[in-house]
């Protein structure tokens, strides 16, 4: 006779949920579990090829579960909540890593860093900004991107532009010329909010400087300061002059990239991943498109480059920490892995020993721009804590929708950001 009591039912339910919690404990010693967001167009195939090289070199086996870029943000949270983080996972350097370091969810890698002499592998500005949190190292940069003004070469040539703008006045003149020719100077697709952030980043960095900006990102300055208002005023001027495409808030970043590729617009401020997208639709780097660095605005301000760093981290209670460390070290140290990976991603390698000749001409120039920059700053949503970033990202789209309300918007954001910093 089958008899199912309430107790056995509860027991069954508990067993099922316990299995979920205890999952990572079952990992075998020769196996390292990993979760990452390099899916589909973001290079799953290339990633697996690099992983295969690691497996061949070490005899360790990687057990992987790729998750789409946007879904990853929630998926990793859910896994953290269930105490079932993989040994290794990909994450965005900056405020997001700082956030999980605070929750004691990551394992420091200082010993491995020293042992494997990573100081000689990773460019110092990247190492300083991306790997250190509260004095300890937690992350190995896997690749990074740089945000610049990517433009359609033919459109600019047809408009008679020969020299790229270096100062703000040059840039305004360029926009004016293009507008008079009936071409929208700047494409922006801010439907998902983040593409607008690079404008705020660069305008603030070029007028108030990296130090003030770092203060603002950490809650030590306010959004109703004169510095922020000045940066926004420059942006407002561009919008008022009609230098941006109409309805930027209705478009994706790829829509904006398409507008530039088609020649409906001249340029777009975007990360180097746009090269991967454009190469994919048949554009030739250096021939069809190129980039210039965001122009200088004020003298005496340190020249900063903006971009995100994709990193690999090890969870605090990894089942196989030794294997995980080997993986991190190998993936950043092996120049062949780094070169192949950077190429597949349309990204820059974090490894200084990678031969620049492996890049196409545009990426070589991007690497040079970053190397010559006096500081490397993370883009807005990686530079400030997530609750604050939400406030700021919405501010950008609200401002683009109606720039005339800039003052009121900044006032409201100052209060909201302050509250968010206290969360």
């Amino acid at each position, binding site marked *: 006779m089958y*008899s*199912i009591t309430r107790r056995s*039912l509860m027991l*069954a339910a508990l067993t099922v949920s316990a299995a979920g919690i205890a999952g990572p404990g079952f990992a075998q010693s020769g196996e390292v579990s990993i979760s990452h967001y390099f899916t589909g167009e973001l290079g799953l195939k290339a990633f697996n090829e690099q992983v295969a090289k690691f497996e061949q070199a070490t005899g360790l086996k990687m057990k992987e579960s790729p998750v789409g870029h946007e879904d990853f943000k929630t998926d990793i949270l859910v896994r953290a909540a269930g105490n079932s983080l993989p040994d290794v996972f990909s994450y965005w350097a900056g405020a997001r890593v700082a*956030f*999980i370091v605070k929750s004691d*969810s990551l394992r420091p890698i200082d010993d491995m860093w020293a042992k494997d002499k990573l100081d000689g592998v990773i460019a110092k500005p990247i190492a300083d900004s991306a790997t250190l949190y509260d004095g300890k190292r937690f992350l190995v940069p896997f690749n990074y991107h740089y945000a610049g003004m990517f433009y359609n070469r033919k459109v600019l040539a047809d408009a008679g532009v020969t020299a790229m703008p270096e100062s703000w006045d040059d840039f305004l003149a360029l926009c004016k010329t293009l507008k008079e020719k009936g071409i929208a100077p700047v494409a922006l697709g801010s439907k998902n909010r983040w593409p607008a952030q690079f404008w705020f980043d660069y305008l603030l960095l070029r007028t108030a400087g990296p130090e003030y900006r770092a203060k603002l990102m950490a809650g030590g300055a306010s959004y109703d300061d004169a510095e922020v208002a000045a940066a926004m005023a420059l942006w407002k001027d561009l919008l008022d002059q009609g230098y941006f495409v109409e*309805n930027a808030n*209705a478009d994706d970043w790829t829509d904006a990239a398409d507008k530039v590729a088609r020649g409906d617009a001249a340029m777009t401020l975007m990360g180097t991943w746009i090269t991967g997208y454009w190469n994919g639709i048949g554009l030739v780097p250096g021939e069809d498109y190129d980039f210039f660095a965001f122009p200088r605005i004020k003298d005496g301000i340190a020249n900063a480059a903006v971009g995100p760093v994709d990193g690999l981290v090890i969870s605090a209670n990894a089942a196989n920490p030794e294997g995980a460390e080997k993986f991190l070290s190998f993936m950043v140290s092996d120049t062949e892995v780094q070169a192949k990976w950077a190429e597949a991603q349309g990204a820059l390698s974090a490894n200084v020993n990678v031969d620049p000749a492996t890049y196409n001409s545009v990426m070589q120039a991007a690497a040079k721009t970053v190397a010559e920059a006096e500081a490397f700053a993370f883009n807005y949503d990686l530079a400030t804590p*997530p609750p604050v970033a939400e406030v700021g990202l919405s501010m950008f789209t609200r401002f683009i929708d109606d720039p005339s309300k800039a003052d009121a918007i900044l006032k409201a954001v100052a209060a909201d950001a302050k509250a968010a910093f206290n969360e």
Partner: protein
Amino acid sequence: MERHNRTWRVALLAPPLSVFAVFVIWPLFSSFYYSVTNWNGFGSNYSYVGLANFAKIFTDALFMNAAINTTIWMAAAIVVPTLLGLALALLLDRRIPGGRVFKTIFYLPICLSAVIVGQIWIWIYQPDWGLLNTVLSNLSGERIRYAWLAKPDTALGSVILAWSWQQTGLSMVIYLAGLTAIPEDLLEVCEIEGAKLWQRIVYVVLPLLTPSTVVVVALSVINSLKGFDILYIMTGGGPFNSSDTLAMHMYNESFRKYLMGYGSAISVVLFLIALAIIGLYFRQLRKVDRIYG
């Protein structure tokens, strides 16, 4: 024998119940628990904050905004597909040429997933080459490039229209089924007695359709409570929170701001609202049952 049956009943119910327990009951109580903490989603260093999260709800302007939008969303999601579905059913419930084709066409959208419906309407609303602006431009003779989904005044309404387009077919089919149950001779008698068309509809057809209406409204309520996906696809709550609903707001607070404790508090409030609506619905259902057996 009775005992034997009961054992079997429990045995057969156990698998779905245990799944339900693990995937619904357990998370439900987890949210109750986390709603009184300041958990950030990572790690285990969080503390008890009492009712602070619930107090915050009253000062959170975005919560109020989301609550108003949810009210608009639910009211529209109930009224619009129900009225349109009823109108279509009344129109198609007679022998008209191509009637079956139209029934099929109007029903088709319900077979699509919300993601696909959302994408179709994103294209319709596209400012530069979308169907809507193209038609409006041709009609008015002016070049219209209004960004329906990217303007705070029209974002929510535009999504509601897309949603209604999908849901109307379902209401129509239920009403069509209900109409077949209304005896022809009754309507004939009315006609002979001199009742006009609108009188027949208002005083005879509509009251007799009450059971269908109960089903339609119930499905609309349930579907609108679930209606997170189409909004997420079409506007993501944007531009700048203007089309946020409570479900969207909960998602933002929990997964974008990592305020899992506050997000849980919002979900508890959402749960209570759903509970109240379902309670009301069951009360109404009992009334209808008493009248129509």
